[in-house]
């Protein structure tokens, strides 16, 4: 397998310790959990999505582990501005605050709380199971552009996380780019549902949820590949990454870095494990492989 030479990593204006970030919403609710994941080898962490008001989230069940993935409908539970104190001890670390809101003003408001205190923002315009938030607004390019601009104008690196539940993800990626995004993160979960045949009703409290994990890897690779053909800003691959080979594959599709979420279910040491396989002193530079799968299908 190809391996990568370790070196400084800066993606979309954020300096990272390596190419592997913790994805939003996985073990990202408390400062100490984020600190633990950093100490376990993540090159950066994205927090749980924070909104303008505290939310308890959907009634349970919120998560179901499937054979090859995870189905969740957390419903964006978050402590809102109490989170500022929560991550204060991590001020110097590569922490990206994920933000959700129902309109540009809400995004800007939440971002303002964290100005000067975090490395960057990731806008959740993509969670598929929260009325009025996430993909409810993230499927409209003009809203995506406006929300992005409302935050990026702060000058703080602003990443935009996209939903795959659209007809054309590149239209949304280009909207984020126009809005001043420093990077695009693809993808959030794929809208999905399971029904308990024993109960005769959906297994998630919210009925609809989002699918993540290995099951969506090939969908995420496709989205990254499509975005790389149309957008100029860096792309961060997310969705089903669980091995170093998956990281390389995402990079070949066009990702500069990856986020990892569900794979932490199998082993919370996933970052260390992948790093051990991914990096070696005699490896190549990431630039040699990022996007290399484009225009090469005809060798």
């Amino acid at each position, binding site marked *: 397998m190809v391996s990568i030479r370790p070196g400084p990593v800066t993606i979309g204006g954020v300096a990272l310790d390596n190419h592997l970030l913790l994805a939003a*919403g*996985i*073990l*990202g*609710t*408390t*400062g*100490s*959990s*984020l*600190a*633990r*994941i950093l100490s376990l080898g993540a090159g950066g962490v994205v927090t*749980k999505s924070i909104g303008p008001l*505290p*939310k*308890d*989230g959907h*009634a*349970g*069940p*919120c*998560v*179901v*582990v*499937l*054979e090859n993935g*995870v189905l*969740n409908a*957390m419903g964006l*539970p*978050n*402590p*809102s501005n*109490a*989170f500022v104190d*929560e991550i204060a001890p991590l001020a110097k670390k590569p922490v990206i605050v994920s933000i959700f809101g129902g309109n540009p003003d809400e995004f800007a408001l939440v971002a303002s709380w964290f100005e000067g205190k975090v490395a960057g923002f990731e806008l959740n315009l993509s969670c598929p199971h929260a009325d009025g938030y996430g993909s409810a607004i993230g499927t409209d390019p003009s809203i995506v552009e406006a929300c992005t601009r409302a935050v990026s104008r702060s000058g703080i690196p602003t990443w935009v996380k996209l939903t795959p539940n659209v007809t054309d993800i590149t239209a949304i990626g280009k909207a984020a780019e126009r809005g001043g995004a420093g990077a695009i993160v693809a993808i959030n979960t794929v809208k999905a549902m*399971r029904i*308990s045949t*024993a*109960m005769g*009703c959906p*297994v998630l*409290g919210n009925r609809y949820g989002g699918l993540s994990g290995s099951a969506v890897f090939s969908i995420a690779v496709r989205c990254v590949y499509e975005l790389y053909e149309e957008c100029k800003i860096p792309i961060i691959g997310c969705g089903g990454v669980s091995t170093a080979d998956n990281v390389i594959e995402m990079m070949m599709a066009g990702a500069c870095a990856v986020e990892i*979420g*569900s794979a*932490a*279910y199998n082993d*919370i040491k996933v970052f260390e494990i992948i790093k051990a396989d991914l990096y070696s002193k005699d490896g190549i530079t990431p630039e040699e492989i990022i996007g290399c799968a484009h225009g090469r299908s005809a060798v």
Partner: protein
Amino acid sequence: MGDQLSEPVSILRVKKETPLIRTFVFDRSFAFSPGQFVMVWIPGVDEIPMALSSEKTITVQKAGDATNALFTFGAGDKLGIRGPFGNGFTKGDKILAIAGGVGAAPLLPLAREDCVMTLLLGARTEEELLFVDQLDECTDVMIATDDGSLGMHGYVTDLMDDLNLGAYDRISVCGPEVMMRAVLTRVEEKGIAHKTEFSVHRYMKCGVGICGSCCIDPSGLRVCRDGPVFSGEMLLKSEFGHYMRDASGRKKNI
């Protein structure tokens, strides 16, 4: 591995244990270690963590919305069960178990495994004492009630003073967090925190270690996956006994 959808169980019967506590008996068993918990899906309501009080029972204290709803369930009604999850208590030869209120639920199966020498059982009043008879059958039970209606008048922690703690190889504790913190303080003074284990309760959403709602400060350990049973030593310099988090992730004092 397969999909880990909730297993459907039917309630065979419901047993009133105390005015606020009921045991729900399922039509099927789950292999488990005492201290492990399951996520109980109350369809249309919520999903909440509950220790297994035996391989086919949970013992539930009425606490809020979900438990209130559960108390309307009777024989024939269906629940969904995911799990068991978490680590359970370390086994030992001579365990001292300390139970407060519904905290007796995960300790009963430990006592039934014959490794508990003595069990200290506490509650506010006599009628709120859980599993007195069942525990009596398998271990040496000492009782304390807040109002003195049975056993010693006072807290279970006070019972500890009458014991030679050196005689036990482990101390396993489950109960309200204030009571557990009192035990922790006591064992710390005696320098035996490393022999103790506490079953920690935190607000849980996923139960499998990914959502982050149950993490404790400052270690960031997940109660659902790294616990719920933690050594007293680990808990000494922690949020334990001081604060926890609610569904939104905000801190609330204990």
